[in-house]
């Protein structure tokens, strides 16, 4: 058999670089930085410069004031209830949508995005119209001593509504890509439903679940619109941190307002750091197929 000929005379031509000209690169990178400075670094810096504008003592006083502490407590309580509820709901919804076939599945999947699509104000109004004291259901609840609108339960329900897609949306693509093979294998090996969930499904989705939980928590802390409608803004009772910031601001108490706002900024930054650390871990672990 003849050997294939390998030509030695023409080494392959290597182009110096296949990319856009330098001017375009400089322009695009410059624009990106300009945008970041104008819309992120500058406002963030402003929050802190305003917050500390009158010194440490004023700052500390603003965040140690009783109403501020009550607002922080209420926000933490809301997060502590909303995140577990949405975690359970999110896992259940993702499980149902990815592992079973049932009528209305695709509709349900698209409806999952509704809380993101609808304005938070409307989300709040929905609950006022549903369980407000002038509605039949609301007045029935009132007779039994349960108050939802203008009190803590309303705030929690509105926050649940606004944040429920985070976890489910994080898990659905993940679980879809993993398929049901491992669950079926566990089934043929004799495992029961709960055993399969704890030993097979949950370990496979744990990073996605944590990731969704963090996003859900961050949004619950910061939610303003929907909570604003149902809360009634009662200081020390139904004021969450974002609402407290708004009240202080409208009273021209700028320093205190920015001081409390800086707490939210701290939390947001923390979320971003935790999230990106986890993303790295997530990517590394997703090679475990």
């Amino acid at each position, binding site marked *: 058999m003849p050997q294939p000929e390998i030509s030695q005379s023409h080494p392959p031509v290597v182009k110096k670089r296949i990319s856009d000209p330098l001017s375009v690169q400089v322009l695009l990178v410059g624009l990106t930085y300009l945008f970041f400075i104008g819309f992120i670094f500058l406002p963030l810096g402003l929050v802190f410069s305003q917050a500390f504008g009158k010194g440490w003592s004023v700052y500390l006083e603003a965040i140690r004031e009783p109403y501020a502490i009550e607002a922080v407590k209420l926000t933490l309580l809301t997060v502590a209830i909303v995140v577990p509820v949405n975690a359970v709901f999110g896992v259940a919804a993702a499980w149902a949508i990815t592992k079973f076939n049932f009528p209305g599945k695709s509709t349900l999947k698209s409806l999952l995005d509704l809380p993101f699509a609808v304005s938070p104000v409307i989300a709040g109004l929905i609950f006022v119209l549903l369980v407000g004291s002038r509605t039949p259901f609301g007045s029935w609840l009132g007779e039994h001593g349960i108050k939802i609108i203008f009190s803590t339960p309303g705030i929690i329900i509105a926050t649940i509504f606004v944040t429920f897609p985070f976890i489910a949306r994080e898990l659905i693509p993940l679980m879809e890509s993993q398929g049901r093979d491992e669950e*079926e294998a566990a089934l*043929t090996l004799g495992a029961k439903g709960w055993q399969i969930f704890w030993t097979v499904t949950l370990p496979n989705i744990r990073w996605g679940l944590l990731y969704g939980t963090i996003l859900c928590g961050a949004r619950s802390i910061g939610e303003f619109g929907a909570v604003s409608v149902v809360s009634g803004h009662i200081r020390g009772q139904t004021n969450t941190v974002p609402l407290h910031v708004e009240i202080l601001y409208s009273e021209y108490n700028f320093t205190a307002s920015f001081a409390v706002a800086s707490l939210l900024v701290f939390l947001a930054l923390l979320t971003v750091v935790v999230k990106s650390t986890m993303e790295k871990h997530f990517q590394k672990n997703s090679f475990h197929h």
Partner: protein
Amino acid sequence: MGIELQNINKQFGEYKAIDNLSLNIASGELIALLGPSGCGKTTLLRIIAGLELADSGKILLENKDTTNLPPRKKNVGFVFQHYALFRRLTVFENVAFGLKVLPFRERPSRSEIRDRVAHLLKLVQMDWALTRYPSQLSGGQRQRVALARALAVNPRVLLLDEPFSALDAKVRQELRRWLRKLHDEIHVTSIFVTHDQEEALELADKIVVINKGRIEQQGTPQEVYDHPANAFVYNFLGNVNVFHGRIHNGKVSLGAHQLDAPDDLKNVEEKPSQTFVRPHEIGISRIRSNDKDLEGTIREVRLQGGQIGLNIECQGLDNPIEAEVPRELFVNLQLAKGVQVFVTINRVRVFTGDYEI
């Protein structure tokens, strides 16, 4: 009886996956379900395992009616096409899984589990990989771990869904022989699904050929290969030349040529026919040995390992025919592209009727 399937039906919407299928498998046998993709063989396997429910019919495993039992009570070992190992568990934990999920009263002690897993991993030659994760193993190694995991629960029957399809050719062949040896040692009634006729012929005690949810033929590899029941089976088991023609007064037309019809079709007056010839049942020579020989020209030469594949254009035939000759003959006859040859058809199978494939 190891496995008895009685009148199984399964429909997905309009599509009939399993069509009133009955099958008996003796204890300890290794059976191949062979058929093209979409023929229902995987569905049948999943029905036996309880992962799908049959619309009607009855399933008996080791004489016990398991038709309506949930999968975890059927006690079958299932090896998935893509292994489905638990990716977050080590090899040891994977194999121990079936024992650890047993109800407390039936669960073996920790040391018993350790011994059993060690024994099984030794059986599949994976005892060196106890603490590895599935992602750290090759395809063939994962397959063997999956097998050990399925065997851990002492299954009544072992079901394997296209067990070698995701492996490369060399590993596939090794694992095939190894599985046959393993089965001879442990004798658990086993069914494997495949679309690869070579795999079925080499590995199985019995082959069940399935098409469109029905059994076309069942028997030992020898029986099925040498005496195919119909045109579908003949065509599916290996390469084949097909000639469409007519059978008329004891003669079969083969393009412009005529052949004597087989004895059982001698008395057929006039019918459409299909004549099948395997490539290795065609003789090639440079001189005419017989007045029935066809005259042709080699159009294409293909190297197929020990055999050489020839594409020959014959006078009087519409389509070229495929032949296979041993390498030695190829060299001795000095065959090459464009060479004139005489073609002797040694053995034909004739099926009448318009059997669509």
